[in-house]
């Protein structure tokens, strides 16, 4: 709500820098911005089916189907889920990492695409009082109704929670909160007793934990997800599936088994102990069956050549 915010963020809607809209013109500008960004935002908002008939929401943030949602929706790491895209198609998906203390989580659609996706507010520009809109499959996926949108302002800001007056309800959990440029600024988490208490995980919490979540880590302790069994084998890479098979290392985390063994970003893991790796699911499945301290042999494609790397698995 200062001049500085405008300078930092040239696309920013000018009404955001007024304490309140002053005229029908200001209101129409809000409406134009909302309607201009709504189509894409609705297309990228997904329903997530849970066991026991429960339902949540999420949003696709990459062409190949990376989905951001809430930890209490994804529920764990490496779990199978079903995602329903806005066109009604059902997709198999797997939960990646989550932050149990703040309710952030990632899920990946296993196959298909390219998917419609939204841009993330990378510079964390959302401010108190900004106009925002919230999407979700309220009460579960409903084909005739479609994704539900609500308008509001950011009414409270704290480090790991933002609050808006966009009215949320069960089923919206994990759905996206957008700024007036259609950039993702938060993920729906929970509501309080009053209609004004609608809580979202700010996008900065996802930025902070991005690589670990991609690497399917269970982060933190807290009310939003139950910790898995301890002492799971841990390699220490973020990876993604490749069309031709194998998984490509997109990041090697510091002080992990992978770093020690000399794995590098761009390496493609083709085999683990002679077992062919086809995709992420397969990769995580194979690692799941191993113990910390196990010595494994990776067949890796680096600069066009096969290479064998020995790794002693660490502990998560």
């Amino acid at each position: 709500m200062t001049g500085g915010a405008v300078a930092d963020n040239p696309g920013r809607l000018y009404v955001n820098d007024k304490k309140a809209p002053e005229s029908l013109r200001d209101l129409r500008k809000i409406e134009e911005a909302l309607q201009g960004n709504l189509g894409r935002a609705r297309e990228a908002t997904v329903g997530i089916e849970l066991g026991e008939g429960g339902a949540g929401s999420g949003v696709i943030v990459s062409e190949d189907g990376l989905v951001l949602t809430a930890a209490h929706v994804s529920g764990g790491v490496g779990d199978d889920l079903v995602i329903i895209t806005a066109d009604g198609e059902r997709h198999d998906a797997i939960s990646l990492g989550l932050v149990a203390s703040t309710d952030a989580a990632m899920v990946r659609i296993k196959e298909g695409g390219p998917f419609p996706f939204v841009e993330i507010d990378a510079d964390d520009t959302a401010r108190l009082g900004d106009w925002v809109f919230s999407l979700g499959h309220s009460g579960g996926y409903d084909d005739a109704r479609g994704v539900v949108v609500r308008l509001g302002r950011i009414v409270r800001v704290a480090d790991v929670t933002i609050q808006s007056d966009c009215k949320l309800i069960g089923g919206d959990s994990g759905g996206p909160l957008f700024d007036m440029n259609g950039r993702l600024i938060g993920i729906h988490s929970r509501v309080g007793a009053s209609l004004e208490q609608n809580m979202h995980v700010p996008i900065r919490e996802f930025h902070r934990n991005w690589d670990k979540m991609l690497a399917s880590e269970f982060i933190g302790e807290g009310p939003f997800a139950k910790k898995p069994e301890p002492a799971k084998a841990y390699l220490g890479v973020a990876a993604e599936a490749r069309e031709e098979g194998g998984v490509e290392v997109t990041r090697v985390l510091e002080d992990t088994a992978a770093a020690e063994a000399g794995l590098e970003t761009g390496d493609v893991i083709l085999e683990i102990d002679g077992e062919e790796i086809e995709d992420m699911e397969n990769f995580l499945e194979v690692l799941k069956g191993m113990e910390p301290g196990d010595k494994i042999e990776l067949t890796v494609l680096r600069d066009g050549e096969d290479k064998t790397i020995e790794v002693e698995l660490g502990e998560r």
Partner: protein
Amino acid sequence: MEKTRQSKSSWASARGLLTAAALGAMASVSPAQQLEGPYRLNGSAVLQAFEPLREVLQSSSAVLLDDWKSFAYGLVVSPDGYVLTKASELADRDEMAISIGASKFTDVEVLATDVEWDVALLKVDAENLTPVVWKDGEEVTIGSWVVSNGSTSRSRRRARVGIISANAREIKGSSNVVLGIVLKTEKDQIVVEDVKEDTGAAEAGLQSGDVIVEAEGKKMEKREDLLDLLGDKEPGDILKVRVDRDGEEMDFEVELMERHRVFDGPQSRNDAMSGRFSGRRENFPRVIQHDIMLSERSVGGPLLDLEGRCVGMNIARANRSETFAIPAAEVQAVLERLLEDSR
């Protein structure tokens, strides 16, 4: 359909919705900033920008009062006192009156009712009123601002604002009328399992254990046969029923009642967080949906766009985040039929 949707709707299953108390504890990690009330979506400073629309509500919306307490709103549809409102909110009103602008009318006549859409046509003795201006042509689109009646004082209407928030569609539900009995099927017979108090069935003298043999002179072989018969009936209609009670055939005439007056809908977890929603919130042929915070006592009035044109009539508060309105074109068609009926 509503039921299916509700049953799926627990807040991300049993994993839990945290209460405000738990949030308070989390938010205290760092000092929080808050936006003061007047600057929130429906705060007084924001509503200032909607003043031209509030003025439309002032002249073209009606406040329905029972013993001087408002229980619904209505649309003024003619200069000489025709008003539309939500029909099912009119039941059991003792001393109905209507406020329009600063005037009060106590001579309220209910001229006609459309059960399918839950709309009633009322008439008060007035002249020179300002009817709503309909938005003709293209239906209001998703993401558009809309304005409804908020709380009201004796002489001043207030606005509440929001946006169109989903696709226009049918809201399915069970038949609108019921006998007031719970049925079960036993040995291929339709058996009355329970008779609800204060219903047509109780008044007529039906008893649990009765086997329904015929209705309207037709043989009843399965419960669907009976439900089919109710499909095109209205509250107050009489259904002739023949039952077998301990081997003896007996005839009854049962007055039908609105479903929601007899059976409460399912109370899901989402309902529990939704405050006071409308008694009837399903079974509408077509609605548009918006996110204005109404309650069961604030539906029935006009839904306006930023130009002040009427884009619909609020017909139900469904839950915490969903309010339904009948689209303008359909309201006008219902109005024409009701005017015809009342002549």
